[in-house]
């Protein structure tokens, strides 16, 4: 992949490595591989790494890490990384997430239906069709930034956000779809709810997915929603491309 990049200050204790390319699977692989490479250097004073669609944020402690040294080291490491295909230290997985699209969990289905001109059945079928790419986690603990929503399902956010969206609510906001991990205010159109917990701080596996994993939604009825156990979450290795 040919790609240019720039290293830009993100405040006085973080640097952004920004790539000049549109969000894609290839770019996310590049950014995750770069994050792993930075981590492997174990540079003193380098702390949190935050991958995003087009950017890797590298946080550092200015007291024991010199800003211009770090910029130079990141620059040469990024150049070196761009000369080879991205090397990833884990195989991505497919995670199947049950969603109950029953009316009681889908207060905004009518709104989405009116906006898209599709019936609820068609919306559910289209929402469950793709394997969504996890570009990154963030916003709130365990929230997944998913790529791959059917353009026919794009739907504007609400003009006035709801004060309280329940945990597990599945929504559409603009060109994005996602699951609210916690009870929060939110402006997405809610079309269903998953019983899967996206953030379990006490568990050995607090998060259901990592960047580059894929998520597939599948419809379940109210009984299956109620009976769901987190340890029955279906997780399989993604087939590598032929």
């Amino acid at each position, binding site marked *: 992949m040919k790609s240019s990049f720039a290293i*830009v*200050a*993100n*405040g*006085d*204790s*973080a640097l*952004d490595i*920004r790539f000049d390319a549109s*969000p894609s699977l290839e770019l996310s692989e590049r950014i995750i591989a770069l*994050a792993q490479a930075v981590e492997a250097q174990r540079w003193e004073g380098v*702390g*949190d*790494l*935050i*991958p*995003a*669609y*087009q*950017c*890797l*944020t590298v*946080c550092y402690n*200015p*007291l024991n890490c010199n*800003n211009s040294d770090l910029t130079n080291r990141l620059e040469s490491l990024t150049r070196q990384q761009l000369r080879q295909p991205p090397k990833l230290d884990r195989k991505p997985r497919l995670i199947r997430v049950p969603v109950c699209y029953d009316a009681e969990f889908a207060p905004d289905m009518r709104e989405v239906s009116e906006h898209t001109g599709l019936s609820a059945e068609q919306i559910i079928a289209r929402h469950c069709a793709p394997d969504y790419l996890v570009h*990154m*986690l*963030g*916003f*709130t*603990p*365990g*929230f997944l*930034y998913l790529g791959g929503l059917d353009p026919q399902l794009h739907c504007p956010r609400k003009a006035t956000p709801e004060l309280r969206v329940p945990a597990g609510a599945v929504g559409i906001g603009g060109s994005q779809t996602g699951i609210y*991990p*916690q009870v929060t205010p939110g402006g997405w159109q809610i079309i269903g709810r998953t019983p899967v917990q996206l*953030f379990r*701080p*006490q568990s050995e596996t*607090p*998060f259901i997915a990592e960047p580059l994993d894929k998520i597939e939604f599948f419809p379940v009825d109210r009984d299956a929603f109620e009976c769901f156990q987190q340890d029955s979450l279906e997780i399989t290795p993604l087939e590598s491309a032929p």
Partner: protein
Amino acid sequence: MTMRIIRAGLQTSVQDLGRSGSMRYGVPRGGAADPVAMQLANLLLGNPPGNPVLEVTLDGPSIEFQCDISIAIVGAQFDLALNGEPVECDRVLQIESGDRLTFGRLLSGARAYIALAGQMKLPAIFGSHSTSIIAGFGGLCGRAIEKGDAIEILEARTVDHRRLEGEYRLRYTRHPQLRVVTGAEENHFGREAIDHFYSQTYQVTAQSNRMGIRLAGDALRRGNQSQVVSSGLCPGTVQIPPDGRPIISFIEGQTIGGYPRIAHVISADLHLLGQLQANDRLDFTPVSVAQAHKILEVKSGLLERLMAEFPGNDN
């Protein structure tokens, strides 16, 4: 060996210096909103600077101790009483079993820290005892403390009397200058908007908390290229949402943001955000990244000097 909460106060929570390495999962660093005051309280007791403390917000608690222990309170100024008798902050307080500590009127600042010569018996999550009030984990059951809670204290001890002097006695103004460096998306704003940002005095709104500080003031006009692809968001970042009024991301803020970033509060001044209360005024003053690092070195040097003066009590 416990402390019993008689009155909880507005939002009293267990905090330390927060987490590291979890922002990529959307878990913010968290920890004390004013880590300088929090570390000073610990240093008075000879504790490691990041020993878990109670963070008191605006309206303080009333606590009964069921052990002999030394404590120290640093940060926002409150009328403090021990068994009804006035006591002072910024010094070691000797507590005997049965004593009751009560927070009265707030005099200045917003958050005070109660450090203990001992350890609260609580589990660590992601390597930290800090309470994430918004995401509901850490500290005591992932929430602020409530009336009737009892927190067990391990290894309670008493230490020699010490007090903070001179520049270590923190006092807070209701109109601070916050120093900032150029924002990652400053080029999304016209010259006029940037000048307006630096020349006006903002006011802290009541919609401010550990997640973010929302400011009232004249709306800033954003440029044409206001679409920003979401990326890593760090505490202290000043974002301009569509309504043109700044939000300063704070210690429990989102880890990914998509509003243009006009400026970033420098690391050395982040602790001042923890002492802002509603209706406080503030101005932004630009400095270079190199200056920001110099200021941080000076402030950290002060803490290090105190650490050398106040050696640990642990053998």
